[in-house]
Every structure is written in structure tokens, then in C-alpha cells.
């Protein structure tokens, strides 16, 4: 029996586990992958403390097909960019969230048509129009309604959010939030700690008996 193949071997073409393994993220740590073919850790400076990941808008995939345009609108709705945000701040599209389609760690490409189709069906049912013809608030309503019937969509939304708020492909979202990213440590800056007891303690050891 070739258990080596079973254990470490080929990734199934479309597999829920592979999808989730790669697409969902945990609270304090996990975010979406770097876009390895275009933005390796070394190239973006993230592998060395003290560097800031550069913004590389040119690395973003541009939507060219109908399906991709629908997904770009999905991204724009989950994290609105300058077209929707009155502040003109960047959003999911500018964070290259559409690069999920090209990331070989994710089956988004394989799911793309199905995903676009689900959203369009929901849009037609709710408003009688395709998703692309809806206003922002209508699109948001469609996404909220769609996840009620298909819980896995929450993972898709998380993946898109992670591109922006987690800085998966570039730093526009991190910059927007004021997150400095890699650093050499904050130990010596005043903001690092109150440097005094701020609460009474129950134990003298740090743990209960």
C-alpha cells in the first residue's frame, strides 16, 4: 500500500478539506497566504524584522471575465474600496483579494463559477437583477442572505477580509488600519506598557493552587 501518497500526496482537485484548510483562518494567527509566485516573503521584506511590506498594486489580478467581474464586486462589497467608500480609502480589490483566484493554495478558481452563480441567483431572487447591476447596499444584503443558506460563504468572506485586514497580498489594509507590521520590538517605547501594577492580584505565583 502506498501510504506515502495517501498521507502527503496529491491534493484533490476540489476538496472541501483542502478548501477549508487553506481558506479559513483562526483568530489570532491565521490569515491567507502570500501570493508566492509574485510576492515571496523575501521579495516583500517580510522575512526580516524591521522592514515594511511594500504596497504592490500592480500585482493585483484584474478581472477580465464575467465571472471575475462578479467576484471583484463581491470583494468590493465585503471590503469596499474608493468606488464605494466616501473616504476614498482602498478596499479588498486594492488589497489584491482577487488574487485568491490565482493562488494554488486555494480552490477559488475551481469554485469561481459556482460562487458567482450562487450570488447571482440570490441577487435575482431578491432584486430581480444580476449581482453586478445592484447598488452597494443591495449587494451587501445579497451577501448576508446568501450566507444564511450556504454557511461556507462565511469562510469565503473571511478569506476576502484577510486579504485586506490580514495583509495577505500587500499592505494596503494594514496601512489603512495603522498596523505597522514587522518590527524590531517595542519594548523601549512608552506605549509598550503601563510599567506598573494596574490591578490587584489573587496569587503570589501566577497560578491558582
Amino acid at each position, binding site marked *: 500500500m502506498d501510504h506515502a501518497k495517501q498521507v502527503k500526496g496529491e491534493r484533490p482537485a476540489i476538496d472541501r*478539506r483542502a478548501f477549508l484548510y487553506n481558506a479559513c*483562518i483562526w483568530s*489570532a494567527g491565521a490569515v491567507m497566504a502570500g501570493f508566492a509566485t509574485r510576492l515571496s*516573503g523575501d521579495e516583500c521584506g517580510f522575512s526580516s524584522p524591521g522592514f515594511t511590506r511594500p504596497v504592490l498594486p500592480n500585482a493585483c489580478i484584474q478581472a477580465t471575465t464575467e465571472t471575475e467581474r462578479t467576484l471583484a464586486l463581491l470583494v468590493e462589497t465585503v471590503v469596499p474600496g474608493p468606488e464605494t467608500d466616501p473616504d476614498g480609502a482602498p478596499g479588498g480589490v486594492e488589497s489584491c483579494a482577487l488574487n485568491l483566484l490565482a493562488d494554488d493554495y486555494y480552490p477559488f478558481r475551481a469554485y469561481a463559477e459556482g460562487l458567482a452563480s450562487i450570488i447571482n441567483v440570490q441577487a435575482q431572487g431578491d432584486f430581480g437583477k444580476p449581482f453586478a447591476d445592484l447598488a452597494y447596499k443591495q449587494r451587501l444584503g445579497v451577501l448576508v442572505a446568501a450566507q444564511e443558506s450556504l454557511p461556507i460563504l462565511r469562510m469565503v468572506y473571511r478569506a476576502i477580509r484577510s486579504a485586506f485586514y490580514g495583509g495577505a497580498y500587500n499592505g494596503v489594509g494594514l496601512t489603512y488600519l495603522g498596523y505597522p507590521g514587522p518590527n524590531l520590538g517595542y519594548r523601549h517605547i512608552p506605549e509598550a506598557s503601563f510599567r506598573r501594577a494596574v490591578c490587584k492580584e489573587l496569587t503570589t505565583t501566577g497560578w491558582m493552587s
Partner: protein
Amino acid sequence: MEAFDVVIVGSGFGGSIPALRLAGQGRRVLVLEQGERLTTKDFPQDWGFRAQTRLFNAYTSKDYRVFMRYGKGLGGGSLIYAAAMLRSPSEAFEFRDKTGYRVWPTSVTRQVLDPYYAKVEAMMHISRASWADVPKAGGCFAMLLDKMGLTCDRTMYPIVDCLQCGFCMTGCPFGKKKHLGHNYIPQAETLGAEFRTGCKVHHLEKDGEGYAVHYADVHNVAQSVRSDLLILAASALESPAIFLRSKPYLSGLHPQVGKNFNQNGDVALVFLLPEGFPKAYGYLGRNNAGVITYAFWDEHRITIHAGAGPPALFAALDVVREGGRKPDVPLGLEFKHFLKQNYPDRLISSLAIGLVDGDGEVSVNSQGLVEFDVPMNETLKAYIDRVAGVGRRIAQETGAELLRTSDESFEHGDAHPLATVRMGDDADRAPCDPNGEIRSHRNIFVTDGACIPGGTGVNPAHTIAANAERIAEWITQNR
């Protein structure tokens, strides 16, 4: 077939500790680790998933509701733990489930574990954080408790001269957070233990008086080794999976393997600090933000750790406001503006940990891959409600606001899977005896989180480590 005295699967706390103790006896020890041998320079300050796939495997439950992960890489979970090393309160060892069953063996108590905890503390240089080590987010959390007239304690860590960079859980890039690669593993190697990385164990097989371990090596080539004594320490997700894949080759496997899955009562609580409160600077400092409150332990059997948070945290949690306040969905403009307005100064995260029944189950699918399920039953619902009640009390009494962290209620699960091959007194309910030996197969021991029979009330790493020391000592004396 290559033969060793002892083969150990996994190099986290459950694996590296017995490796050292058994190598110290002069036994020929092989440790198989599925991840890589990583050094400090391999830990990028990057929350991106691709960087982290070297550090852990992650899964969601069958209904996509619960997220779980376990560490990989030489040193296992110690590479990515937030490094709070706390002894479990005595009451955790006395916990009884809804049927009245005492999940911990009567012979394993806090008092019994204390000398083993001390051993680990000495090995890993564990000490209490000073108040200067407590980052602002932890300080703000402690201030909330102080405002309530409650207590909040500084936590114990194996961290020396922390630079407060905020990347403990992606592997400390400055080598300040001690992991097993700083202590147990090099000492075991000095004593002759061999650690092979990139080796993913598929199944076990009875082989004469011992066992064959079949694995895929770093080149993805099938290999086999044998030993008379076998220790499984591949995590509470992977250890049962190895057993379950071995069913055709290990007759009479205990039927409770994979059951009783317990997520240590982890529930994510996020607070919006009151207006005018000091700034939290959420991304500064150690990821476990320096303090824990035991103030709710006596009444609710819940502790709460303060946590710091990179923005990725708020991408991963479905953080929304309740009571009709916006954002009520974690999507769109209102959510974006809410984060912009409140991160990093007013949003602080925390992790509640408590005692709850383990009603989940780990299984393997037709491809032999791990699956798990944590049913949202009445017990779990009641527990989460209890935790949320504590969170709401903190909010109400301090002027803070508790945010919901998942679509249903509060995110639970995450990083502390336990009990899937648990030890216990009852031979029908617990696959392992109190010494960690699986009842159905002599000389196979389980020493990781899988054998910890129930919630630990605090981060479980220290208890897993102490229990591994205890079982290792028993093996050295009895086998």
C-alpha cells in the same frame, strides 16, 4: 526493517519530553516529526497563511463552525504557542461530566503533577512576567477587572528579555520565547535521540512483540521502522487519526479512540474599551497579553486571558456589535470604518477557558484525512452562554462593550484540542489507563493533548508537558 527501542510520533511537548527521558536511560529513541526543523530566522513576522503553513495544520469542523489547529515543525506546538505556562487549578482535575464521571484519573491530581510542573519550569526557564512585560492591551484588560474590584494576575512564561514585537504565535523571530528546540530537543539529541523531520506517519501495525510504524519520509517515500515501545504524541487531532487509520492492522482498538474531543472551553471574547480609557495598542507586545483573571473561577470555572491582536484577528473573527448597533455584520463599509476607528486603541481580545464536557469526535475520511465535529449541544450552548454572561458582566460594570465573535454567538475552539485518546479510570470510557498506555495495546502510550482527559482551565501546554514528564518517568521505571 530499521529498529529502535522507542519510536515517538510527534516532537511537541508530548514527544520531546519522553524522548529526552528515555534517551537519558540509554535507550535508542527515534522521533518522527511531520514538519521541518526551523530556526529563529525561519520565523517571519508575517501573519500570512503561506508562511504559517510551515508552522501548523488547520482544520474546520464538518459544519465549518469550529476552527482547530495543531503545531508542526520540530518542537510542535511550542513553536507557535503564546507561551502562557500555567499550572491547572486543582478543581480542573476534579471535574465531572454531565453523567457524573470524573474525567481525570483519581491518581492524577494537581498535587501529583506539581513536581512534574516544577521540572518543566526548570527546563524551560519559566518565570512570571513583570508589570513592565505586560503590554498595554493586557494592562487595559487588568484595568477593567480593577474597575470591577476584581483581581487579575500576571502570567508565567518561558520568555526571557521579550522585545514585545507582537509575533509570538508566528514563531518568535528573536529567539526570546523558549520552545522545545531550546531545551528538551537538543538535550535529547546530545543523549543520542534521533529526530527525523518531514516524516508523516500513516499507520501502525502489530509486528511480533512490538509495532511497525509506517510513514512517508521527507521525499514522500514510504518507510517503516519498528520498536517494542511506541509513543504517540502527534496532537489531539492527529494521534487519534493515526490510530483510526491503523484499525485494520491493530485488532481490537479501543472504541473510544477519537471520541470525547474537548476544545478546552476556549471562547473568544472581544471588548470595545470605554471612551476615554487608555489606549490599548493592540498589536504591541506578547500575543498572550501578560495577564489572566481567576476572578470567575470559583463561580463559573472560567479563566480569561488577555490577548493582543494583529488586524488579522478581526478578519478571522466575525466581530459584530449587538443590540442593533452597527456593524451588525462583519462585512461592508460599516465594519471597515468601525475597525479603522477602533483598532488598535480600543479593541482588545481575550480568550476565556473553562471546564466543559468533551462531546466532539475526531474521525478520518475515506482518504484517511482528519475530520472532526463539535456538536453544538445543550451542554456546549449553556457553557458558551455562561462565558458570554461573564463577558457581558465585565462590559456592563466597566462601560466597555462586548462584541459577538461568530455568526451564532461566540467563536469557540481554536488552538487547544484535547482528550481524543484520553486517559481515565474507567476502562470503557477511556482508551488510556492513568499511565497513558492504551488499554487495547500494551506498550503503546499517548503523551500529548490527546491523553489529557478534559479541560485544564488554563492554557493546556504546561499540563501536557507535566503529564508527559509523569508518564515518561513511569515508563522509565516500569517498561
